[in-house]
């Protein structure tokens, strides 16, 4: 997907990413961390950094006028992460119903592109299902589809 996004820094381990959101409210540092929570499963966490206190916050809505650009950057980070670790499952648990809805809306918006490379599951009403656009989910699981080329190489 070629959407407007921020450039981001990646630690050489490919488990930590940072970028700066720029908008009417100034610059807001954002950081993303993938932490292992199970065999081959990594949690995706995303937070704003308060530069005055150094405290991370994922509840704040920065209203910096760049929501779509931030979401596109997060999508690119997931592309990069899974390009490096293509066998890993990413678990995304939103911190609120509104954040979950935001993720769901954006996955839905670009699902045609996303499903070419990823399998996405959503958890709803006590069960997992293959992601369906315009459904609201509690959490998400994402993993990269194995390419034909990888199957041949392996």
């Amino acid at each position, binding site marked *: 997907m070629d959407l407007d996004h921020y450039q981001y*820094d990646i630690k050489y381990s490919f488990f930590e990413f940072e970028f700066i959101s720029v908008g009417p409210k100034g610059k807001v540092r954002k950081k993303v961390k993938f932490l292992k*929570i199970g065999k081959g499963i990594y*949690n995706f966490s995303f937070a704003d950094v308060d530069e005055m206190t150094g405290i991370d916050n994922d509840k704040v809505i920065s209203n910096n006028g760049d929501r779509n650009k931030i979401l596109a950057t997060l999508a690119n*980070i997931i*592309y*990069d992460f899974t390009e490096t670790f293509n066998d890993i499952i990413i678990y995304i648990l939103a911190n609120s119903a509104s954040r979950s809805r935001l993720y769901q809306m954006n996955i839905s918006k670009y699902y045609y592109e996303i499903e070419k490379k990823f399998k996405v599951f959503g958890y709803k009403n006590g069960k*997992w299902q293959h992601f369906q656009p315009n459904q609201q989910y509690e*959490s998400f699981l994402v993993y990269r589809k194995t390419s034909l080329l990888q199957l041949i190489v392996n």
Partner: protein
Amino acid sequence: MNKKNKARKYTGKIIGTTPFGGIIIDEPNKYDNDPFFLKKAAEAKAHLEKVGLPKELMNRNK
């Protein structure tokens, strides 16, 4: 690399770029023991243990 990136200060050396807009920095992880991320991971782990994996992924993950 554009001028904006050149103006950014990095403590580590830039060792590469990615096709999606990433700049790879020769720096170790900073947040492995960050309480915020550890708390988020613990919450996610507890949630995942409660809900389990989809059947399709259980087999994949054996």
